[in-house]
């Protein structure tokens, strides 16, 4: 069996919320080991598209293919099973719970005694310790309450969780929005690490420079339409910003790149 062209392919996606058309016939794809930057102004439909990919929303029209097979996710659990993970900016982890409970949330390691499932806390703690070590967090206490950790640490843990459970596609929703400069750099390094490990990712951000530093290709959405889909090397961050701000028609940019 030959490998399909794209890891993820979406065709003609339409999503409406009442009278509002959030996405209008959007085509979108992600290749293997590719980092795609998804940008656009507020209300452009970035988050809606991401939530459709992970099964949080269901599209009204259009088809989705993952690894060449058509899929239809009823819930995030379906998408997770196939290896699609999302890391939300503020809701990746449950703040009141500790690290190991968060890492294994809904993927608990357990032993079965009769019909009762008992958490294997020892094993989860060990795995967590190792994982914290891998991502370079100094305090390697698996019982630490997540709410007390820094934003960067939380993002790192959420990404590490995705990798640990064999994700093939990781979606990062505003991964750097609440982080210090140093922490942002750290998180962006993880994104590049993902690529090295052969994991594809979609990075959604307001900060074009952050996207630009890691993405291979940039997709711009504008009020539910895809207006630009361009390899990073063919445009400067400033040009992308101009497109988003409607100072530069996307056709004009494309003409420039062809020239």
């Amino acid at each position, binding site marked *: 069996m030959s490998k399909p062209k794209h890891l993820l392919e979406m065709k003609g996606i339409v999503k409406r919320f009442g009278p509002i058309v959030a996405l209008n016939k959007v085509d979108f794809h992600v290749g293997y080991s590719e980092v795609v930057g998804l940008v656009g102004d507020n209300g452009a439909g970035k988050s809606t598209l991401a939530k459709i990919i992970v099964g949080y929303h269901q599209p009204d029209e259009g088809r989705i293919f993952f690894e060449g097979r058509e899929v239809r996710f009823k819930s*995030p659990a379906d998408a997770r099973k196939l290896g699609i993970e999302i890391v939300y900016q503020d809701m990746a982890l449950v703040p*009141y*719970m500790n690290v190991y*409970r968060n890492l294994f*949330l*809904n993927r608990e390691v357990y032993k079965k005694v009769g019909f009762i499932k008992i*958490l294997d806390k020892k094993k989860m703690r060990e795995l967590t310790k190792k994982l914290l070590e891998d991502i370079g967090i100094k305090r390697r206490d698996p*019982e630490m309450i997540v709410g*007390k950790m820094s934003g960067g640490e939380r993002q790192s843990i959420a990404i590490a969780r995705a990798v640990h459970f064999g994700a093939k596609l990781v979606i990062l929703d505003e991964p750097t929005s609440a982080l210090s400069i140093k922490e942002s750099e750290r998180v962006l390094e993880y994104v590049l690490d993902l690529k090295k490990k052969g994991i594809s990712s979609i990075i959604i951000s307001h900060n074009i420079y952050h996207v630009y530093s890691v993405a291979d290709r940039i997709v711009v959405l504008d009020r539910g339409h895809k207006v630009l889909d361009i390899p990073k090397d063919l445009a400067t961050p400033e040009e992308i910003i101009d497109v988003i701000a409607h100072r530069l028609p996307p056709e004009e940019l494309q003409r420039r790149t062809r020239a």
Partner: protein
Amino acid sequence: MPSIRVKMITRYMELGVILSIIGMAIVFTYLNPRFASLSALSSMVSLAAELGIMAIGVSFLMIAGEFDLSVGSVFAASSILAVWLLNAGMPFIVAFLAALGLAAVIGLANALITIKGKIPSFITTLGMMWFIRGVLLAITKGFPVRLEVNVPELAALSAPILYDLRISGLWFLILAAIFHFILTSTPYGNWVQAVGGAPETARALGINVAKVKTINFVLSSVMAALAGLIAMSRFKVVEPVAGMGLELEAIASSVIGGCSLAGGVGTVAGASLGAFLIGEIRVGLIMAGAPAYWYIGFVGVLLIIAGIINLRLSRRE
């Protein structure tokens, strides 16, 4: 770096209530040395049993981020149903299961209205509380419902076994242990905490939030029915106003035991200890010879203090 002390309290939320229990025990023993006896202790466990069993269900639901104010009414409704069935000559097991079944249906209704109707459970269950109470008062015309027949099986619910310890006290301890275990050591317990702490995150991670909440609504209702049946087996009579105010005492127990009103935080052990503390105060005040009216005032002070501690802890981010 957080200090060791902060860590201790956030990790072992029951510490505050345990300290209070010990502190109160010292004071009460000073006031009446008989307080420090097995007999008094077993009396406290028995007294706390009904409230405690209720608090287990209520705290489980509170941790999942929802309220149940209808438990006091369910307490009365299910036991009145059981008395009617027993008086009609039904076997004990039928009456027992029917009472729990009625509670389960009420819990399910609470869940469906709250989740499908997207209204706060505080409103749903407040309405349910008054609705059930109204129906009970209308049907019974305000008269208490008496058990007319001799049902030996009722002993299984509340017969005294040792000193002043009743079987109901034992049920309370066993149920507290089971549900504490479920919350802390099973995948389901993990989901309950996640659903209450960050419902969107839980949903994004593939947890069926509606299902978890529904199960907990039913659980809270069924536990209230069990508490009602235990009370019925002790008194052989159910007033249509029985259990009034118990819903608030159950919520108070949970908060004193470290549960957050916002959900996501708390343990069953804490809530059970909270109920025990309330029982301890009740027994202690009577043994010390203080007028019983002080009791509710004490619970009020405790609740406010527990609330302050809760707030401090939830600001830890």
